[in-house]
């Protein structure tokens, strides 16, 4: 009996023109948590799609050996039957259905007569939910619970399918630190009960914390498998494998050249929920951003940071907005997004797919979208040659990996989409750029490049507001950090005095007030 639950041998998958996977090998032991790391587009998700049968047998070459048996999965049902369950980065839950309905979707509990047994459905759902520590009742709608809890529902759903090998694709990318920690601890708990898991993640501290072994993939090939049984692996060691070179620093240096001039200011900003108009989501928030400064915004999920940013950006969120907004010392009343862009304030969304990009349009068209008038001439006619030049320029500056600027953005990997999104807003040429989770779900190499771009902006005398749930990133990049909790501003720190512990304690203290 060998101790591998899963062996993937010499997996090769070609798309027209690209070799997505080139003789990849992956070996996972019984009862371990195995991390799969690599840059965006390295082939991690493709490999998992091969394993789960999303890419059916025949469309790749190589062998999958699961529990000593050679497997040929033709679809997801084949792999699920054997207890291999994949949870994708974009959760596959239906917002308008209840937790229980979602949990047994496609796997309904039926009576002898073939119709759905609701009593059994809700009873079984409750049972699985207990295992993941969900205290909601099974009849709550998915849209009424947070992302963190939705993630738990996905896991409970996997458990209900008798999972033996659980694959999690970026499970914590949209969770804050607290929820992430909880999720990882839960996985460690399941591990003790004999569950095997493969985790794809970009968060290296989590990799070190949770995994027993780590496989590094780069450009479609396996680079190495590292042992981490003592959970002490050096993050720099993993990065070296991923990018093939040593990154000297994860946060690029910049000259701190902050002038006294206040470029943007908000005073007593208050926002109510757009639908439940008596629920206050941002309460009397005031803050300042100086020319040449990177200001970080820290806080837990639901602290109101995104709501604050979007409401400042031409009232694109909320109702009953009150307070004052100043750009360059002058009070402005931004009616809508367009007005905001014209005044030099831009907001880069945290959700590039839903709110950021037109995935069915080309890179060129997306790049110019927020300020199309810069490439239009007489009668609003778009100068396509000029547009092409601009797009080429940004692709080069950002090092966006793409065959051409006429590629649809939907065909790019996450990190490259993020670069296009940033290009779009840099092209809009704002003085104040609000970045909402700019490095979510992208790899270290791309992160570093995005940090460099932020640095360049502030050296040009602009200002950047960075909302982030990753504390190391905030500490590494910002000059000053504001802390928000439950819609209120609860603290302000100079970065040189700030630590992760201090920020967390500010948040926790404010909870008690």
């Amino acid at each position: 009996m060998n101790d591998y639950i899963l062996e993937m041998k010499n997996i090769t998958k070609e798309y027209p023109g690209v070799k997505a996977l080139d003789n990849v090998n992956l070996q996972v032991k019984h009862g371990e948590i195995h991390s799969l790391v690599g840059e965006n587009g390295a082939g991690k998700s493709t490999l998992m799609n091969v394993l789960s049968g999303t890419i059916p047998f025949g469309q790749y070459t190589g062998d999958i050996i699961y529990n000593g048996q050679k497997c040929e999965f033709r679809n997801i049902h084949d792999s699920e039957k054997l207890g291999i369950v994949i949870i994708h980065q974009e959760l596959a839950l239906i917002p308008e259905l209840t937790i229980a309905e979602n949990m047994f979707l496609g796997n309904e509990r039926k009576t002898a007569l073939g119709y759905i047994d609701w009593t059994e459905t809700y009873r079984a759902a409750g049972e699985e939910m207990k295992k993941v520590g969900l205290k909601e009742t099974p009849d709550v709608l998915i849209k009424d619970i947070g992302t963190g809890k939705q993630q738990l529902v996905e896991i409970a759903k996997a458990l209900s399918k008798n999972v033996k090998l659980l694959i999690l694709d970026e499970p914590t990318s949209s969770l804050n630190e607290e929820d992430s920690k909880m999720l990882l601890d839960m996985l460690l708990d399941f591990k003790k009960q004999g569950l095997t898991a493969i985790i794809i993640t970009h968060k290296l501290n989590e990799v070190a914390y949770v995994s027993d072994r780590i496989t590094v993939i780069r450009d479609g090939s396996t680079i190495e498998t590292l042992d981490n049984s003592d959970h002490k692996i050096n993050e720099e060691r993993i990065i070296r494998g991923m990018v093939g070179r040593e990154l000297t620093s994860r946060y690029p240096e910049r000259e701190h050249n902050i002038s006294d001039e206040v470029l943007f200011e908000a005073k007593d900003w208050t926002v109510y929920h757009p639908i439940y108009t008596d629920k206050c989501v941002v309460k009397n928030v005031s803050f300042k951003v100086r020319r040449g400064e990177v200001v970080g915004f820290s806080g837990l999920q639901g602290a109101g940071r995104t709501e604050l940013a979007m409401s400042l950006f031409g009232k694109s969120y909320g109702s009953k907005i009150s307070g004052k907004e100043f750009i360059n010392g002058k009070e402005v009343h931004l009616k809508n997004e367009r007005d905001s862009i014209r005044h030099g304030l831009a907001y880069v969304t945290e959700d590039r797919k839903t709110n950021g990009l037109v995935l069915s349009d080309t890179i060129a068209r997306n790049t110019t979208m927020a300020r199309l008038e810069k490439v239009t001439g007489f009668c609003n006619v778009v100068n396509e040659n000029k547009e092409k030049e601009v797009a080429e320029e940004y692709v080069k500056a950002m090092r966006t990996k793409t065959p051409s600027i006429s590629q649809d953005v939907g065909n790019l990997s996450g990190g490259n989409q993020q670069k296009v999104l940033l290009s779009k807003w840099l092209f809009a040429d704002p003085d104040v750029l609000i970045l909402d989770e700019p490095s979510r779900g992208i790899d270290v190499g791309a992160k570093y490049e995005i940090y460099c771009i932020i640095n360049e902006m502030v050296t040009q005398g602009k200002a950047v507001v960075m909302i982030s749930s990753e504390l190391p990133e905030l500490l590494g990049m910002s000059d000053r950090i504001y802390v928000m909790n439950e819609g209120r501003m609860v603290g302000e720190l100079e970065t040189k005095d700030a630590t992760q512990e201090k920020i967390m304690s500010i948040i926790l203290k404010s909870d008690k007030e």
Partner: protein
Amino acid sequence: MKVSTFIKKYTMVLALFVVFVFFSVLTGGRMLLAQNISNLLLQNAYVLVMACGMLLCILTGGNVDLSVGSTLCLSAASAGQVMAHGGSMGMAILVALVIALIIGICQGFLIGRVHIPPFICTLAGMFLYRGIARAVLDSQTVSIQDESYLNLFTSYIQIPGFDVRRHCTSALITGIVLAVLITLIFVYNKRKNGGMSKGSMIKIAIIDALIVFYGYKLSQYQGIPVMLLWILGIVLIFGFLTQYTAFGRYFYAVGGNEKATKLSGIDPRKVYFWAYLLMSVLAGFAGLLVSARIGAVDGNMGNSYEMDAIASCFIGGASAYGGSGNIGGVMIGAILLGVINQGMSIYGLPDQWQYVVKGAVLLTAVIFDVVSNHKTGKS
């Protein structure tokens, strides 16, 4: 270019060619008679015109306008009644277009600002305007006698002394001049952007040949129809709008991702507003064309015309989810439908079977579109 990608790219053009040849053979060449060639576009003028507007609606997210058949009838009815009561041609056209404009503003406002789902809003409009049109007509058929009105839309360009009924050489000359012009512009552009490929040379040669052939056929039957110029004008304007202007690009953006579009400083409400406004105005204009061609207006005019416009868009490759499609493709779709219609009529296929064939063609086109996009699309 590989054969498979070529076929994928020009599927509908090839389909059009095959269908045309098929019907030409089936009808023993009657399809190719000058009169039939000339009538092909004129008979389908309403589809060609309305499909331009319908494309805008569909681009915004697969939304359609079901009311256009009724709008067409109402505007035609108003024009007819104005003239029947002694109004001038100018008056009639003005009244018809203003009515269409008002309908467009109302629907655009309701859909864009009030967020009434387009399907429901225009379904209501379909009943509403049909009813009003019948009321305007007093349930009668109104015939149009005004010569200047009929001439404005249905006459043929014949240069006195130069053209005679069956030998309107001016049409042929125009065709040749046009072909030469297109070739020159094409060569100039290619020179500027470097290099002509063999494929594009063949393409331009085929286009030239078709234009000259069309001009020749027109010259054998009364010359260039004025209505053709109207159609061409509309199609060119809308082709230009959608392809080359910022205004046109917003329709694609909204259909691709409305939220992202809004956050980029483009107001989707305005985009919806303009789509439905332009659609209604085009429907009104199509009303003028159809009424002039038939020479009379009745309460059933334009029945199910909306479906022809919608079908052309989908056959022409517009996405049922919005965000993609272009005027060129839609025109091919419309002409394909037209060829099938005309071919079946000439052949004398019974009405019931004509419906079956049209349905099958639409379904095949959309299935093909979905399947081929799925394969070439995301991994």
